[in-house]
């Protein structure tokens, strides 16, 4: 990524009227923007709309960008803001549903002690969703960036503003936490003996 043109260069070109440069930036970050939008509004199927809006809003306010080399994390902020605006505007119509990132009341124990041992696919989906909800908030966006759009650690760190090592630690811990919930559930459902790591 860095052997091509840096973000800062592209941003400068955009400000000077080169829309192709913005196309390059969109290609680079649209997956991440989409994943972030999904993180907020995916439940409502509006992730694409929100990511489009976010990319347009970001372009519009490019002249306000103070540090062009931090374009990616700035873009993440813009996306978050666009998503929260969308949620506020549509809050009246969606407040009966519980969106993914706002469902935080479930603890690990709740997820583990789910009385209905799920076999059916649909239940499994809900199980995974709940397991993700139990993750600390800081873990969730990297997890979604990774498993939704298969972004590399490098891209994730670019986008969230955390260092690559931090991202790596976050994803390791997140997956191990998810594994404990899901595998335990799996093994119980298969009637096998409970397995524990030594």
């Amino acid at each position, binding site marked *: 990524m860095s052997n091509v043109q840096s973000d800062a260069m592209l941003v400068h070109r955009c400000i000077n009227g080169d829309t192709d440069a913005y196309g390059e930036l969109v290609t680079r970050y649209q997956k991440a923007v989409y994943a972030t939008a999904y993180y907020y509004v995916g439940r409502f199927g509006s992730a694409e709309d929100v990511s489009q809006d976010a990319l347009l809003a970001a372009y519009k306010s490019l002249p306000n960008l103070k540090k062009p080399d931090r374009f990616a994390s700035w873009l993440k902020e813009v996306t978050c803001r666009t998503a929260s605006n969308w949620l506020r505007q549509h809050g009246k119509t969606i407040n009966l549903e519980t969106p993914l990132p706002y469902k935080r009341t479930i603890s690990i124990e709740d997820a583990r002690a789910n009385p209905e041992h799920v076999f059916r696919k649909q239940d499994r989906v809900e199980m995974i969703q709940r397991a993700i909800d139990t993750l600390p908030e800081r873990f969730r966006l990297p997890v979604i960036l990774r498993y939704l759009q298969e972004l590399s650690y490098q891209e994730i760190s670019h986008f969230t503003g955390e260092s690559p090592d931090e991202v790596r630690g976050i*994803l390791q811990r997140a997956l*191990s936490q998810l594994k404990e919930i*899901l595998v335990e559930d799996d093994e119980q459902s298969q009637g096998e003996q409970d397995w524990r790591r030594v």
Partner: protein
Amino acid sequence: MASCLKISCELPSYLDNELSHSEKLIVEKHIQECPSCRRELSQYQKCAADLYEQFSPHRMQHDVKQYVMEHLPELDYSTRDVAGLNQRAKHPSIWRERAIRLIPVGFATVLVVLAFLISEQWPTDDAWHEHVVGVVSNVSGNVVRLSDFGMTEDTTDLKQFSSKGDSIRTAKDSHAIVTLKGGTDITLDEGSAITFQDNRQVRMDSGQAYFNVTPANQLFRVLTPYGDITVFGTQFNVVVDSESVRVDVTEGVVRFEKDQMYETLKKGESVEVRSKTRRLQSTYSPAVAERSLWAKKIVPNNLVKSNFIARYDALPPKTELSAEKAFNFLDINNIPLKAIELKWNQSLGSNYDLAGYHVYVTSFEEEEIFHRFIEPSEFRNARNGRLIIENNGKRKLRAKSMYVRVVPDISYGEEKIIFSGCKAILDLE
């Protein structure tokens, strides 16, 4: 062999293909040897697969790039300052924050200032002193004191203070003496009413009173229904009844004013004024002294009087000028003053320890006519015990009367001159 714990931590990254080449080799080698880690890896694999499977339907279906590039808005340069606005919204200007922080301090300051102002206004002991004008120093029979606020006290005890605005009334067969600040005694006969406006001004509504006024820098005035009596320091008797006012002078000089008229009374003279009186005419009569004898029989309680004077007259005098000797009302009848003549009986010719004198000449209305300082040598060189001091001030000023005060300046010497008289020399041309 690497520890299982470390390896198991790195398994997610191994699955994500995010390990460096050497890390990857270590993990692969460990997994071949360690069944539990192998098992764990498979769990991770399943978990990751579940997640990918979970999210795969939600993956970005359409490239948004085309849409975005077709709908690109104008670059918004005008909102360049939005960041600044946000900055200011998040971090309001320092002075405002400081001002807000100063609110409690300001509040406390206001309280302190208020407390100070209130304490300034609060009646203190001294302020109370200012309101006290006199003390009842002798009383017999039924005497009533009416306070300014309408409070009535039936029996007026000795030592009871009279304040500004208070009235004293004496019933039949009663009398009282009020000693005012400065030592003036007012003896009230039966059936009299007198109101104290301050220690040098009283209003007399009825009855008979004998005034023994101590000289001070300030004029003493008695207001009556038919005219005002102005004195400097003297003794006189005033009788006020429903139709007339009579003033009998037993000592010194008294001036009686009614409307535009005035009459100066000397010892032994008296004047009687009715409401219709058009001309003031003083008469000399030996009966004047007799008419005042009643008051001589009543004397103030010396203990009360001296305590009162010690307490209140110790306050610093209000006027800056303390006259050693004052000459009352020299009538000049609106004729310009040319000079004054001071007289004395000592022989000063060889006295080299004489004091110098400030001579103040003022009109009756306290307007200065002139003021001169006379050096001791001028007194020594004067002949026949008299010195003429020319008016070098307002020569044209026309006053009905004037008075003269002489104030010694002992920086020249300590021997004082006992002045016996003062005469006005008028400019008759």
